[in-house]
């Protein structure tokens, strides 16, 4: 029995990777522009925003929760940061405040969910609306511009020819991989998602773990918000709208179970890449953006159906 499970486990893990390789293979055949260094970095830069949000979402989904407010957290936390920069505050300080505010927003989600015992879907649906509303209030509905040039480095700069957003994406991946795999907090996240009651009775402070995963989600959302703001050289009040959907899609494509307890963060990175490459490839093939949505949705559905049939 154990061996059979192990095998299907590996299959489950290889599935997303095989899918990614397949898509890359097909696109590189049908379009010669696809597999160029320039385009690959371009894709990865686009992927990085979603990947960062999706990492945080992975923690949340592993506990059996969901975070719909990430898009709004992006908008509000970057508005805070940009607002400070535009009025002459030191960039690093402004970034710090922005990220801190995002983390705090996530913590509020966590407290409402863990202490208030509100279903995550409802709680974050409400805060999604609240944070978006606050963004519009704070920005008066207008973009914040006039950011210092040095700030552009974070989203538009390069390190050893590699776009900075890609570096952030990989550094965050490494850190979070270690947290999930090698720390007791990571183990608590899996245990909580698998069986909350057993975890609590094992003496683990499950409320604390729950609050922390939403804090992490808020932290990563605001980080990706900073990168987005830097790339656009402005903070848009509507930034991040519906980004939660791509993030959830990346997590699910990566093989993490929406019911919690099963999954891995490397899968999420692969899932985010599948979505990004699909977007890029369809653009290169001049597919209309209307059809792009149909194809993307179809791929997600197909992936989940394949996953289901494997479970039988």
């Amino acid at each position: 029995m154990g061996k059979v499970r192990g095998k299907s486990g590996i299959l489950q893990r290889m599935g997303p990777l095989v899918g990614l390789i397949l898509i890359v293979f097909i696109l590189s055949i049908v379009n010669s522009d696809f597999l160029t260094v320039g385009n690959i970095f371009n894709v990865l830069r686009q992927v990085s925003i979603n990947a960062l949000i999706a990492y945080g979402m992975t923690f949340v989904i592993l506990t059996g929760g969901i975070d719909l407010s990430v898009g709004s957290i992006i908008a509000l936390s970057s508005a805070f940061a940009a607002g400070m920069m535009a009025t002459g505050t030191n960039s690093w300080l402004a970034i710090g405040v922005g990220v801190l505010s995002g983390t705090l927003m996530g913590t509020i989600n966590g407290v409402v969910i863990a202490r208030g015992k509100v279903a995550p879907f409802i709680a974050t649906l409400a805060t999604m609306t609240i944070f978006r509303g606050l963004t519009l209030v704070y920005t008066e509905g207008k973009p914040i511009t006039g950011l210092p040039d040095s700030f552009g480095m974070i989203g538009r700069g390069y390190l050893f020819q590699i776009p900075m957003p890609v570096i952030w994406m990989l550094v965050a991946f490494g850190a979070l991989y270690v947290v999930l795999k090698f720390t007791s907090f990571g183990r608590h996240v899996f245990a909580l998602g698998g069986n909350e009651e057993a975890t609590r009775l094992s003496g683990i402070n499950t409320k604390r773990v729950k609050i922390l995963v939403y804090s992490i989600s808020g932290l990563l959302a605001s980080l990706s918000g900073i990168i987005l703001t830097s790339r656009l050289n402005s903070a848009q009040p509507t930034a991040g709208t519906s980004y939660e959907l791509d993030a959830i899609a990346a997590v699910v494509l990566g093989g993490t179970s929406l019911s919690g307890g099963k999954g891995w963060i490397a899968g999420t990175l692969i899932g985010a890449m599948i979505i990004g490459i699909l977007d890029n490839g369809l653009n290169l093939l001049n597919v209309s953006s209307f059809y792009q949505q149909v194809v993307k949705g179809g791929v997600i559905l197909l992936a989940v159906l394949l996953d289901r049939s494997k479970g039988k």
Partner: protein
Amino acid sequence: MTDLLTMEGINKSFSGVKVLENVQFSLRQGEVHALMGENGAGKSTLMKILSGIYSKDAGSVQIQGTESVASSPKTAQGLGVAIIHQELNMIPDLSILENMFLGREFKWGRTGFVNWPRMRSEAKNYLQQLGMDLNPDSLVGELSVGQQQMVEIAKALSMHAKILVLDEPTAALTKREIEKLFQLIATLKTQGVGMIYISHRMEEIFQISDRITVLRDGRYIGTRDTNVTTMDELVQMMVGREIKERFPKVETNIGEERLRVEALAQAGKLYDINFSVRAGEILGIAGLMGSGRSELAKALFGVGKYQGKIYVNGKLVRINSPADAIKAGMALITEDRKGEGLVSDLSVRENLALPNLRSLSRLGFIGHRMEQDFVGDSIKKLNVKVHHSGQLVSSLSGGNQQKVVIGKWLATQPKVLILDEPTRGVDIGAKREIYDLMNQLVQKGVAIVMISSELPEVLGMSDRVLVMHEGRITGEFSRENATQETIMVAATGGKSHG
């Protein structure tokens, strides 16, 4: 007269592993035939072949003399075979009659509209046949587990079942409900229904069955008439060796007080609970389902708010969470292994480590080597049968899962160990290992509080017995004075002290 059911030479393999080999079984009309064997002996596989869930590789199944192949649960129903599963299969938000006729509702002609009056009168009819005074319109979720089971049996009868398989029917029933079930079984016997009775509880099997068949490791060991066999013979048939005593109680030196509870109360659940346990002592807590035993265990472990005082090792402690309880030196092994004891998506290793991560980690990082050593030790010490520690805990047998639950707690080195139904759903061999383990622990000076619904176990293993009823302690007996009768009197609310 031919038998109602004859199964002969049944073989079944799963991916090359033989789980049934040349097994035979027969059932007469109006007979209760008990099927016994340790977990994994092949009882449920045999029953799944009978009920069309699995197909047999070889052998013959004859129902009333004709070869009958149930290729699906639906065809099995047509052949008159019904199984009452251990976990009941009813929809709590539907009424009794909706459940009874689910998927085969009576209609008005061919209209598709449900003929409620006819269904209601039929349902009433079957319920009355079983002597049950239930309103067919009440929701199943509002019934007790025992009543739900009766409704399932009524449902089976409404499908004209001739062969009824009862899989651990009494596991979740109170004493009174069990008596009611046994009356019902007697009624069904007179109606000529043949019943296959699967249970781990010896006393019941001797009370209710006519014949007993034992399987071991997928093989047929033998069939005995109940009135000529003995428990010892059956145990020997089941485990293939002689188990000298079922309850290997050892004498220990009873030392200082480990746990004392004063005027413990929890609104609506527990009232004025006072007791203490000493080092080296096993305190048994008996009582019916819903008497507050598990609530007491949970309250001691920081689940829910309580009034009153809890002393551990003579020190007053305040326990607001399981973490506090663990810190104070307590461990709780809950009755609900799947729901509260284990995380089934995690491996044996991860489950064993769960409450011990603090001591296995440095600065929040889990020490890989430390964890491996710890897990290897635990597996060896408790004799858990695993291929490797990375195996999912849900792939183990009930007894081995229970050993994992116990193992994860022993490493916290508790002074007070609370065991809630420690041997439920565990086969005889593993039961004995769990008793031996309890003995080792009390010899080391651990105090054990053992909650159990199996009176023989309570009587066999406890130094002292408390009895609970409706959230209160209604009796306390020394080992010498405790009997099934005195305990039952206290458990049903009659006051008595021994």
